[in-house]
């Protein structure tokens, strides 16, 4: 029965163009990250070549190519920002729509007058949501590999594994926001309010909490800069305790470690950054199941 629900949801999303749009948006931003990486690579190499010419003309030794000092995958560092900003928004819409028509349009009345368990229904909806977001993430992975190949060279086996780890983590992060979209709708029982509330949560997690817990530097919300302000000042020492709740911040920092673009740290510390996202997803998925089990599908509220 899980498969029946998932298949139906995938078909509905395909007809609503939600599935292709999700794949195109996620893949498109991977393309954009690749273009930005290529542009910065191209510009810096151009400047470096000119500098080398100038320096060698003066008989001095040229400094090493800056790109040889940077990790290969740093070219895709913008991708982690797109996942937290655009990807999370898309995931909210996917999660919201997975639940919306059945819960508010009255279709649920017909569904639950059939022999289906609400647990199977929940897992079916989650499976469909995971498939759509997974397709988007898989396309992003392929685009990233292509971008690295075009700009530099075909990634090494280690880089491919790191990239796969990053996108798997990104998929989990997107699933978290998809269940936020579903939970908000089930709690508020109105489509517009549910979507608005989920976007409010996204704004808080993506912009407000990172700002609060990372030295009040607005630029950190949009750039993968780690600890711009040392936490030895009292205020930042206090706010740093809230950091585990700053999901977007944890994502960016853990993603930086997975891609090996950030300062290395012990693996246990990286797992501690991943854990809040896994726990939050598990709790919200369980809450989705609980809310679907208690939802009164005999009433409809198409607003």
């Amino acid at each position, binding site marked *: *029965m899980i498969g*029946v629900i998932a298949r*139906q949801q995938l*078909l*509905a999303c395909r*007809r*609503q163009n939600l599935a292709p749009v999700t794949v195109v948006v996620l893949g498109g931003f991977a393309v954009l990250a690749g273009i930005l990486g290529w542009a910065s690579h191209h510009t810096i190499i151009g400047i470096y070549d000119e500098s080398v010419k100038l320096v060698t003309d003066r008989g001095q030794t040229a400094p090493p190519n800056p790109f040889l000092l940077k990790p290969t995958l740093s070219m895709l560092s913008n991708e982690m920002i797109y996942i937290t900003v655009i990807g999370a928004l898309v995931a909210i819409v996917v999660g919201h729509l997975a639940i919306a*028509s059945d819960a508010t*349009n*009255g*279709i649920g*009345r*017909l*569904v*639950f*007058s*059939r*022999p*289906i*368990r609400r647990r199977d229904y929940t897992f079916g909806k989650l499976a469909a949501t995971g498939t759509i977001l997974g397709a988007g993430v898989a396309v992003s992975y392929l685009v990233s590999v292509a971008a690295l190949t075009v700009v530099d060279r075909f990634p090494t086996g280690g880089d491919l594994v790191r990239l796969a780890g990053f996108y798997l983590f990104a998929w989990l992060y997107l699933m978290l926001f998809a269940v936020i979209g579903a939970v908000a709708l089930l709690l508020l029982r109105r489509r517009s309010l549910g979507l608005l509330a989920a976007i409010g949560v996204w704004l808080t997690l993506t912009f407000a909490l990172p700002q609060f817990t990372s030295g009040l530097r607005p630029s950190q919300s949009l750039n993968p800069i780690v600890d711009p302000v040392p936490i030895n000042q009292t205020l930042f020492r206090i706010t740093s305790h809230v950091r585990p709740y700053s999901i977007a911040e944890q994502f960016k920092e853990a993603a930086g470690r997975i891609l090996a673009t950030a300062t290395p740290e012990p693996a246990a510390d990286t797992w501690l950054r991943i854990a809040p996202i896994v726990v939050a997803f598990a709790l919200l998925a369980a809450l989705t199941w609980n809310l679907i089990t208690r939802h*009164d*599908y*005999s009433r*409809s509220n198409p607003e």
Partner: protein
Amino acid sequence: MATSPAIEMQALEHRYNSDPVLRSIDLTIEHGEIFGFLGHNGAGKTTAVNILTTLITPTGGNARVCGFDVVRERAEVTRCIGYLPSEVRMYPHLTAVENLEFFARLSGVEQPRKAARDTLDYLECADLGDLRVGTFSSGMRQRVGIAQAILHQPRVLFLDEPTTGLDPMGVRQLRETILRLNADLQMTVFMNTHLLSEVAKVCTTIGVLSHGELIYKDSIEATVARFPDEATLEDIYARVDAATVGDLP
């Protein structure tokens, strides 16, 4: 199981918050009956159907459909019922056949696509099969709604205000469909309705619900014989609704 009534309610009660909507309903409907459940808006008819279709849990008493308890044996109940709500909603971006196929799969029908097409054929609306439901008029949606309710050949069919949105021809078609289903498949039909003219033409038994209480139940023949002075079922209904239980003949 054949000895169990099609529908049985015993001291059935339901409250929304503290407001009683159904008050100690006792009602038995035998297999093969076409039962018309009458009552004005807010009388509790839809709540009763919601309980019998397992969509909500009653706050008191118990109800059984085809011998199965609607709370404890939900899966068995939903396997033997079909349900048409007053306002039919389906996935608008999918075709009628795709929608029906989905509901057939949920009901465990073995060849869902064939069942979807056969049911539309049976209802003489096969031409709707490949059109998207979002483009349908309310009458067309209602016909596809009936198809989803019967495609798994349920033993008991619940119709909640089935004539909503239908034009006179649609109402006539619906009446003929109900009579055919009852005759061809021996389906028991439980119908909430306001349309007394249709009740008189279709139903074998009627029940009247007023403010959550069942104040009358009898066969159409017995009802007409009981009220010889009243010309139409509408007059009988008005008299029943105005009277208290003890005042009725």
